[in-house]
């Protein structure tokens, strides 16, 4: 079992490493999938593993992307300093927002996270001097790695792929740890966890901060990838996209959000080239998924494989 898992991970890493062979266009597309997959995985830690229905996760993604870009454009900081600053600020913001939001649970929690994230969006729209508002902020210079500029598409791809592998490894470790077991316990039965003596609120906040920090990491990589940010990335729609990615792929699994992100983005590019109102299509698919495939695409695969093994 352990051996097979190691082999699977090895194959996945090799496949990631081989992507640039497929050309710049494909590599760029997969790099985008990987950036948003980190974002979706970080949300899945909350939705899928801890049972926290966060509807404002874009706040932490966007905040970090802005921090990296603003530090770069206005202060001339290298992205390599911007990245940890972005992650730290996102985690700190998640701590503040989470501190208030975890006071309620279930649906009020959902409404509050959504409301708070909209605050971040409104600030980015209003604070034009710094954020560029809806026009966005251009002029970010991608940093270099060992003398290789990230302006080179292949280098950029490898940095993002390495970031993805790191985030995947980190979240896997968190979920496999005793801390992860507590998160899952809260998801399964919060009242019982409290009765057993766990300070549930504190662990919810920890999950929220970890989720926010990893979302910040993906936001920073997005700033590297795009070299341009606008208030769009703080908009509620992006939080919504991430929820669709998680649910479509399968909440509460590691692979699910990655698969969901790939499906979502490919669908977006494919449908939007043929049909202007692609949200209609995505919304319809999402509704069908919630009704008929609540475990998600990857969840279905896992179920089928388990059923096949039993026979």
């Amino acid at each position, binding site marked *: 079992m352990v051996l097979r898992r190691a082999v699977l991970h090895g194959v996945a890493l090799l496949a990631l490493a081989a992507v640039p062979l497929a050309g710049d266009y494909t590599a760029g597309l997969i790099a985008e999938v990987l950036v948003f997959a980190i974002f979706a995985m970080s949300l899945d830690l909350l939705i899928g593993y801890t049972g926290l*229905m966060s*509807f404002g996760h874009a706040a932490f993604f966007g905040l970090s992307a802005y921090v990296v870009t603003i530090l770069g454009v206005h202060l001339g900081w290298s992205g390599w300093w911007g990245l940890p600053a972005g992650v730290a600020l996102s985690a700190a913001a998640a701590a503040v927002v989470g501190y*208030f939001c975890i*006071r*309620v649970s*279930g*649906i*009020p929690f*959902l*409404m*509050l996270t*959504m*409301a*708070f994230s*909209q*605050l971040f969006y*409104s*600030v980015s729209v*209003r604070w034009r001097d710094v954020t560029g508002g809806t026009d966005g902020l251009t002029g970010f210079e991608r940093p270099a790695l060992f003398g290789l500029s990230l302006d080179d598409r292949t280098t950029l791809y490898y940095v993002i792929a390495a970031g993805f592998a790191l985030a995947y490894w980190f979240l896997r470790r968190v979920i496999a740890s005793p801390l992860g077991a507590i998160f899952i316990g809260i998801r399964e039965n919060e*009242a019982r966890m409290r009765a057993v003596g766990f300070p549930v609120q504190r662990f919810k906040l920890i999950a929220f901060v970890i989720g926010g920090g990893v979302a910040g990491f993906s936001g920073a990589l997005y700033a590297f990838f795009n070299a341009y940010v606008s208030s769009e990335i703080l908009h*509620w729609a992006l939080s*919504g996209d991430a*929820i669709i990615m998680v*649910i479509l792929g399968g909440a509460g699994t590691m692979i699910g959000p990655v698969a969901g992100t790939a499906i979502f983005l490919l669908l977006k590019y494919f449908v939007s080239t043929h049909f*202007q*109102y*692609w*949200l*209609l299509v*995505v*919304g*319809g698919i*999402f*509704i069908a998924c*919630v*009704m008929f495939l*609540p475990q998600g695409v990857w969840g279905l695969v896992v179920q089928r494989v388990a059923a096949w093994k039993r026979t």
Partner: protein
Amino acid sequence: MQIVAIQLFNGLVYGMLLFLMSAGLSLIFGLMNVVNISHGSFFMLGAFVAVAVAQATGSFWVALAVAWIPAVALGAVVERVFLRTLYARGHLDQVLLTFGFTFVFTDLVRWIWGPDFRSLDVPAALQGAVEIAGALFPIYRLFLVGFGAAVALGLWLFLDRSRLGAMVRAAVDDSATAAGLGINVSLLFAGVFALGVGLAALGGAVAAPVLGVYSGLDIDILIPSFIVVVIGGTGSLRGAFIASLFVGLIDTLGKAYFPDFALFVVYLLMVVMLLSRPHGLFGIARA
């Protein structure tokens, strides 16, 4: 002094519009334990329908009279065909479903009416302003305050004085016991859902001359309504009404006197409420 009076008045107007949104939101939440994320979409839909009907017929009143119909019909379909099938599952699946509909409605509205900003003219009978104690109050806004108050009164009479309203209240308190007493809770769900989104659409229609009509109106009205529901407490009409006026006033006064911090004022209010009374002004702690 006049300026303060005008600002207070504008806050009252905005509060009444918020009430038309949050009354349905709060009722649906209280009864079905579902937050209808697409509630703002119905508000937007009502506004667009009102503009379209007003253009076709030339009459604001006809527009107002029919603007709620498509929303109620769509709401009934959403509840009967989609939401109902998920009642056996958790509430979050139902919330996700309404969330999926926001995407569908956003693009449907954009498809039918395009992305441009539209406006609805105030009807001739309500144009102009009246002077009260040296301050000018636009008649249409006075009408809005009266309209909101009338809807609030009607809803209160319905919930508090009618047999159907008593059934709704019973189901809000304890839907299982209500069902045991022979109340058709499932049908009640559909009725309240349709009523709630109909009110939202009506709100969108009367708000159109004040707030404008555009794609994106859904989220702009949804977020403050969420804050109202959090502050007022879920499932409480009284809470929704008081919190709506409160949020409307605070937001308007904040924008007038602290324009740089206006965004934060309402959130500050919400944070204070969360720290002191996490279940809202009139909310009941539920397991």
